[in-house]
């Protein structure tokens, strides 16, 4: 992998191999076009497979598994049968905690229809509810991951076992970067916690590390690790070092003509320095008006943490970051095996106003039509109780909602059974969800391939279908 000139356009293997293995990081497109200019080599540009509806994705990940039964999938029968065991007409599910024969737990919610579409939402999301006409609720999701590790892994990579690239990495691989000075795939966790599985969730699996997500610590002075030199290193000192470095490197490169990787590394330092200038501005929310900050719930104790992240997400996508994943309840906080009322009412409060603010802000800036907002956890929760007042994991039926990015709002897709245990109609597996997100971005999940060990790997493991109901007019 030495030289671009070796990868003549006719030599598809080498060119592909080069792009895959050398995988220049964010800024890759800029770097490639630069080298293309210098070497006369034509770089293939990442292209979409069909017209894209969405340009960016903001994925609001409610980690731990929020209860669809208490938010967007009302089940009157559940309250009627509360306290009784699951009727025998229902297949006995495997539950994560293994509590057998637990009685059904009511969902004491106040349900209201909203907007022109009349979509149902509970009192736990009063602000988001105002946007139901922009929201498509998918009530028929299912997954294989029954525990948090498998579930979060699958929701990110389509499979519950570690080793595959995350969706954000695939998007970066497929579409490249739109801002050479910022990473293309960014992850922000609330409370600076560690989500289940850690950074593996935004890893690039078998693809080069340059496709992996970059974690941003929005509330810290140094949002990206090692972005700045230590404080006692003055700018002048840094500049002098760099100048000597480039002097050595230029000479070295001259002695090694036809070795463009050396040139690329020289450029990578220049890009790094441009990033130092760009990234702090991108995460500086003090540049936002008071009204905007209010909109996201900043200034209120419960909502300011996640509100800040939502606001950051908007600033990042405005600057060309393609894929932003925000963890809410980082570290399985939504996991409510007991005391779901207390747990969920608190967590819903932390996310409701920030998300409503995000939707409104995106809309008024004209960004919602090109930004896909996805809300959901790794699974839902059971209608059966656990430990008396909690709910266990439910991978067999749960809800996710999407808004913006070409999605037709005000509709419900799919259905769970009368108790919300199993998805029964228009079932969408995680693979279908990913295929649909890719589809909205203009990427066909079966055409996007990465050759790995002689196997054309696809983001959705050769399965999954773009559910076009999402974009029906």
């Amino acid at each position, binding site marked *: 992998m030495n030289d671009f000139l070796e990868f003549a356009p006719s030599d598809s293997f080498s060119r592909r191999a080069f792009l895959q293995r050398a995988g220049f990081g964010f800024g890759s497109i800029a770097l490639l076009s630069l080298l293309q200019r210098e070497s006369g080599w034509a770089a293939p540009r990442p292209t979409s497979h069909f017209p894209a509806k969405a340009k960016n994705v903001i994925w609001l990940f409610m980690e731990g598994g929020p209860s669809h039964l208490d938010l967007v999938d009302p089940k009157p029968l559940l309250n009627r049968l509360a306290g009784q065991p699951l009727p025998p007409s229902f297949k006995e599910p495997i539950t994560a905690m293994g509590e057998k024969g637990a009685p059904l737990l009511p969902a004491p919610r106040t349900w209201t229809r909203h907007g022109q579409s009349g979509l149902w939402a509970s009192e736990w999301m009063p602000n988001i509810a105002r946007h139901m006409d922009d929201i498509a609720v998918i009530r028929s999701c299912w997954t294989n991951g029954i525990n948090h590790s498998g579930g979060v892994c699958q929701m990110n990579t389509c499979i519950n076992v570690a080793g595959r690239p995350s969706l954000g990495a695939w998007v970066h691989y497929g579409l490249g970067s739109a801002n050479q000075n910022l990473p293309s795939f960014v992850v922000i966790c609330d409370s600076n916690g560690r989500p289940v599985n850690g950074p*593996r969730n935004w890893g690039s*699996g078998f693809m080069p590390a340059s496709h992996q997500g970059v974690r941003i610590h929005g509330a810290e002075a140094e949002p990206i690790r*090692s*972005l700045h030199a230590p404080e006692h290193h003055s700018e002048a000192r840094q500049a002098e*070092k760099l100048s*000597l470095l480039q002097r*050595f490197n230029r000479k070295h490169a001259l002695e090694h*003509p036809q070795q463009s*990787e050396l040139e690329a590394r020289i450029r990578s330092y220049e890009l790094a320095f441009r990033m130092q200038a760009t990234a702090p501005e991108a995460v500086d929310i003090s540049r936002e008006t008071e009204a905007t900050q209010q909109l996201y719930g900043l200034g209120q104790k419960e909502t300011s943490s996640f509100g800040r992240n939502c606001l950051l997400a908007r600033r990042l996508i405005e600057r060309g970051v393609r894929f932003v994943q925000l963890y809410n309840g980082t570290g399985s906080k939504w996991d409510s095996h007991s005391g779901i009322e207390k747990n969920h009412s608190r967590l819903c409060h932390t996310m409701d106003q920030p998300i409503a603010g995000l939707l409104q802000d995106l809309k008024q800036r004209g960004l919602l039509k090109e930004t896909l907002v996805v809300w959901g956890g790794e699974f839902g929760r059971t209608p059966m109780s656990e430990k008396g007042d909690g709910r266990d994991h439910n991978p067999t039926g749960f809800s996710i909602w999407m808004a913006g990015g070409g999605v037709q709002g005000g509709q419900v897709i799919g259905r769970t059974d009368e108790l919300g245990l199993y998805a029964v109609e228009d079932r969408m597996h995680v693979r279908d969800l990913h295929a649909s997100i890719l589809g909205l971005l203009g990427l066909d999940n079966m055409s996007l391939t990465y050759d790995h060990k002689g196997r054309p790997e696809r983001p959705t493991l050769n399965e999954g279908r773009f559910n076009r109901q999402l974009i029906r007019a």
Partner: protein
Amino acid sequence: MNGRGIGLAFLLAVTSLWQSKGASSGERHFEQFIRPALIEHCLECHGSTKQKGGLRLDSRAAIMAGGESGPVIFPGAPSESRLLSALRYQGLEMPPDDPLDPTLIQAFETWITLGAPWPEQDPLVRDGHGSISESDRAWWAFQGIQTPAIPPGLSPRSGNHPIDRFVGSRLHAKGMEAAPEASPSTLLRRVYFDVIGLPPSPEAIRAFDDNRRPDRWTRLVDRLLADPRYGEHWSRHWLDLVRYSDSDGWNQDAFRPHIWRYRDYVIRALNENKPYPKFVREQLAGDEMPGSDPEALTATGYLRLGIYEYNQRDARGHWNDIMNEMTDVTGDVFLGMSMACARCHDHKFDPVLQKDYFRLRSFFEPVIWRDDLTAANEEEKAAYRSQEANWEGATATIRSDLEELLKPYYEKKWLSTVEKFPLDIQASFHKPVADRTSLDHQMAYLVSRQFLEEGGGPLKAMSKEDQARHEALTARLAAFDYLKPKALPPIMVASDFEGPLSPTLIPEDPNREEIRPGILSVLADPQHPSLLIPVPERGSGRRTALALWIGDDRNPLTPRVIVNRVWQQHFGQGLVATPNDFGHNGQRPSHPELFDWLTSYFISTGWDLKALHRLILTSQTWKQSARHPQAQSYQTLDPKDELLWRQRVRRLTGEQIRDAMLAATGELTDRIGGPSQDESAPCRGLYVKQFRNRNDTLLHAFDLGGGLKSVAVRNTTTTPTQALLMINGDYVLARAGRLALSLLAQSVSDPERLVRLAIRRCWGREPEAHELSASLEYLGSSLDPLSKERLEDFCHVLFNSNEFLYLD
């Protein structure tokens, strides 16, 4: 049956496993040249999607039918065949971008002269229909290994070295010449990094410079190959291949405190230069080897390297994943065949049947994981037992009191643990071992791990009085600790279940046909498709059979695969550029004759890895410079960069970058092996704890393998993240500070000598005049206290320089 008898019976049986050459020479010619050329150069415009000029070239019938302007070939009459004139750019010019390589055009002529033979399985892309055809068997990687004649020396540069002769003859045919030999300092740095993974010390540089013996190079190579750091460096590649990691890999990503003993086994095996088949056998079936060598047992840590977590309710699915993954990795690592496709269906491109996948998996079906064994020899075990008996005798009453106290609490925890699992798993667990099948036992093992590892042990639930009693008893027990033997070295290993084995089944096979262990159909004699399994002293013998088949001299894949891996690590690219895929989707060998010759040489030395290194490192092909005066024009002659007319510039691996910094500062510890260390320890990168769920360390930024899948070639990325970590990161800044300190500690007051010393440590050579002046200018004229900071910055610049990060 005694061990000797088994061996003989096995050998007799295995003899018939190697297929006789089935395909005709014409068909082999087709497979070797014509099929790949048609796929690569023609089908885009003349295949199933497009038929320019009405011509299709994807089956014999289609070729014979010709296009809009008539037939394109006349079998036996190349001069009449328009296909050939088009390839020669006489009239039509095909392929339109660039003419084919003349040798390939010649191959088309030969093919037409031979009557355009086309194997009976017509289409160019495999139809998966559950069988293996003669054309499948004719694929290059499945052919027996030949020993081609070494080509004559055609240019003075090719000398007498066989590698140079083979490489030289390809270059000569293209009118090209190899690059001149690299400078001694370049070679020294290259050979150090290539063999022991570290830069030469200034003393080593001086010793080499002062050595005027004519054989100084071979002596150096031998010395480095005998250096224990050779095993450290080369183990890294093997550990990447087998996806070694220090952690479990699910959410908890628990640290594996004992797995490093497997890592150390690999280091020792390489340093001892074990014949490769022995290395293979110890890892796959060391538990079944005769005798009781703890080393062989430790090697079965190979069977423990996959992803695991105790806290998995779906025990059956978890184990199934573990077995499948073990199968995948074995195909990748030893056979260079990507098997995973065949898990769900016959492989689309390669002759690997779904049955073949499960035959391979079947070898592993009886595997059970063992945490109760140790790396001690018989003598140590006996000593342990006798001392333990003393301690047991002295503590019998206390222990039985303790046991009685804990019993109800343990029982309660067992109950609550087992209840969490589905009913069928509970049933497996409750069976007495004698009534279990292998699957029952495997399930019971997973349940037991849940019991052992889940937090909140019995003590938590204990009553106050019992807690007090417990404390008193343990204190009394501790008083006898002086009698207690020191624990024997624990290991993570595997063996076979000794009871009835559960059948291997293909999922959703309505007939539930048991799949017996067996080798790839394409390599088997169609008359005798299965292996005879030997009966070893213990275990089922299945994995022993697999290991012996993999390590057999006649296996066409194993020796090629490992020779290619060694070559790749010395040249940055293998003779086959896709080292874990020798199938149709991979690349073909760039130098088929050299490849076969080398492989046959390797087998003739008894699969001696160090002999292979030595052969490569003494060739001019390896020693040539990375710079070539004709580089620009040669690149167009060799667009794939495979003819070896220069060495490749290679970026150091993450470990090498880290180790080289620690070597330059003098911090690097020279302890070989031992438990894995924290990131901050000044040990080699190899020994830094690798967690599967992390991807954010300096090593990861420089493309660490990750330990999730078999990695045969590391990615080489160039990212601003790396630049940020190198220029701003604490770790590198701290190393620069240490280098500056260690330079100052030399109590050298002459700045020029300081610069020389720093450059020697970082670049392995003397600075040139302009480098010296630039450095001195940067440092300022004197070294007053203020400019220590300046010296630090200078060292930091050296660590960031391309000359430090790359090898040429």
